[in-house]
């Protein structure tokens, strides 16, 4: 269940209360987020929409612990992240967050396998265990046969699938997707969205996604609009069980 009124259950996976974010641009102060509330349960698929500059990516950065809010709190799985030190936040990100970026952001000099393995290098897994995880993740995104390929040898859609494998390989608590289909053609975008939906439906992954594309947003369970620094619910889609018909 997704709520934006600040009255969500305390057991929600993600609880955001009174989130404020201000930027200074020269002498001007920009109030991007103003008292934003959000509750997201595990297994939810939420899309954030809104005009450019409305603060979608800022919200995603705050939820992912990449940025710190001016005020308010973010609690994920019981961890209050807004007051964590930079070091703690880094460790927390490694454990709980999987990032999927618009431009894929793969390391060009590493193979698909090595890119997916990166988050696991921070764990205590052995080489054999890492290999097993990486192969599973790449198999999940349908690129088991492209492990030794470099990003330049892959199509945009394939690159994004590698990025998704990298995001899920360490089994994070939730995924943050910033315009995951923004750089793809419609066919590839559909494939990527199908993959993300599969992660939600089959693996009960919680996904928070920023998008400009209403077609892409429709794939989410809930679409929220950012207006004047706060979230407004735009629509909910009925949850379809795995294997069901939408």
């Amino acid at each position, binding site marked *: 269940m997704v709520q934006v009124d600040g009255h969500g259950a305390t057991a929600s996976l993600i609880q955001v209360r009174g989130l404020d974010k201000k930027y200074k641009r020269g002498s001007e102060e920009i109030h991007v987020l103003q008292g934003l509330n959000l509750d997201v349960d595990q297994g939810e698929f939420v899309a954030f929409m809104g005009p450019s500059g409305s603060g979608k990516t800022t919200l995603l950065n705050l939820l992912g612990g990449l940025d710190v809010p001016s005020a308010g709190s973010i609690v994920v799985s019981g961890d209050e992240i807004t007051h964590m030190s930079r070091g703690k936040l*880094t460790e927390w990100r*490694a454990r709980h967050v999987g990032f999927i*970026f618009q431009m894929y*952001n793969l390391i060009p000099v590493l193979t698909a396998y*090595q890119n997916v393995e*990166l988050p696991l290098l921070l764990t205590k897994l052995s080489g054999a265990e890492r290999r097993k995880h990486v192969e599973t993740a790449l198999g999940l995104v349908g690129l088991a046969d492209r492990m030794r390929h470099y990003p330049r040898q892959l199509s945009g859609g394939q690159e994004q699938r590698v990025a998704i494998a*990298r995001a899920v390989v360490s089994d994070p608590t939730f995924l943050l997707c910033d315009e995951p289909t923004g750089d793809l053609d419609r066919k590839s975008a559909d494939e990527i969205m199908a993959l993300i939906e599969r992660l939600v439906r089959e693996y009960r992954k919680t996904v928070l996604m920023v998008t400009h594309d209403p077609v892409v947003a429709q794939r989410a369970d809930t679409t929220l609009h950012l207006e004047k620094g706060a979230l407004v619910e735009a629509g909910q889609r009925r949850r379809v069980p795995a294997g069901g018909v939408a």
Partner: protein
Amino acid sequence: MKFRGLIFANLFRKKVRFLLTIGSFALALLLFTFLAVVKSAFSRGTEIAGADRLIVVSRIGLMQLMPISYRDKILAIPGVKAVTHNHWFGGVYQDEKNFFPQFVIDPEYQRRVMTELVVPDDQWNNFLKDRQGAIAGARTAERFHWKIGDRIPIRTTLYGGSSWQFNLDGIYHSERAGGDESQFWLQWKYFDENAPDAVKSTAGWYVVKLDSPDDAVRVAKAIDEKFANSSFETKTETESAFAAYFVKQFGNIELLILTIGSVVFFTLLLVTGNTMAISVRERTSELAVLKAIGFSGRAVLFFVLAESVIIALFGGFLGLVLAYLAIPVIGLALTGLLPPLILSKSLLTLGLGFALFVGGVSGLLPGIGAMRLRVVNALRRV
């Protein structure tokens, strides 16, 4: 090391730049090592000087001669074990570029004072019996392909310009690493008989062997006091002080080398630092992604430092290999102009240490920049 793949992949991403940086590092280290070898060559005399030896020269200057009678007077001073006297012959073998030092020696005491310069007994005995005999240092003998029994003509530039003939009776080796094996010894009696009257019965300098190094100050003072107010006053100092004084005659070699070395160091620092800075700037977004997925700032700093240290290791190793190959060749070409150039293990270690230090320092600033990189800002730049 599980990060090895990431570090090396980044290192080789721009192969041409990597090779050029390695090349410039190697050349700079070759220059640095060469300078260190030259400095070591000049200071070697000081380093290997006998602690129990004094050098007595005329107070007026090194070229001023002293009476040969001083030998017995010095020998009579308590604490003196042995005294030998030397003369600068200053001859030319075949061509002026074939420089090597020729010393007129006192056969009676030479071996008792210069104990580290070893001549086999049979060769020495032949030398003693042969008035025209000569002993050459192993390096000089090798340089001119001399063999024992060879007749060696040396034209004197100081004593009339005539050619003196010598028979090579022996070859000496130095027992001390880096010791001087370039000298050519001839007998004082033969020299004295043929030298101009003004030079007869004189010595250029005396070398005094002490009973104990602890006596050095006292004996030096006693020698100079003994000849004070005479026509030939003396100046006595330890062999190492004399060697240092001798090096100073070439000018301030140490300052010169230090200056050039500093320029090399800072140039290298800038070249490697610039390479690392460009490399880090080019992959700002990649570093941001690494930090986003959970790599700490310190891990990112480690990656950058590891890359610059590896560049330094590659470049340093190549530079040292080049130095190892080039210095003997350069040394041979400069024979006579410079003391023997020896690339010792300690200099190789110093070179490697220098390379690692430069690598570490040059990676530090870009590394700290990467460590402090704000993920949000860096990703926004993409």
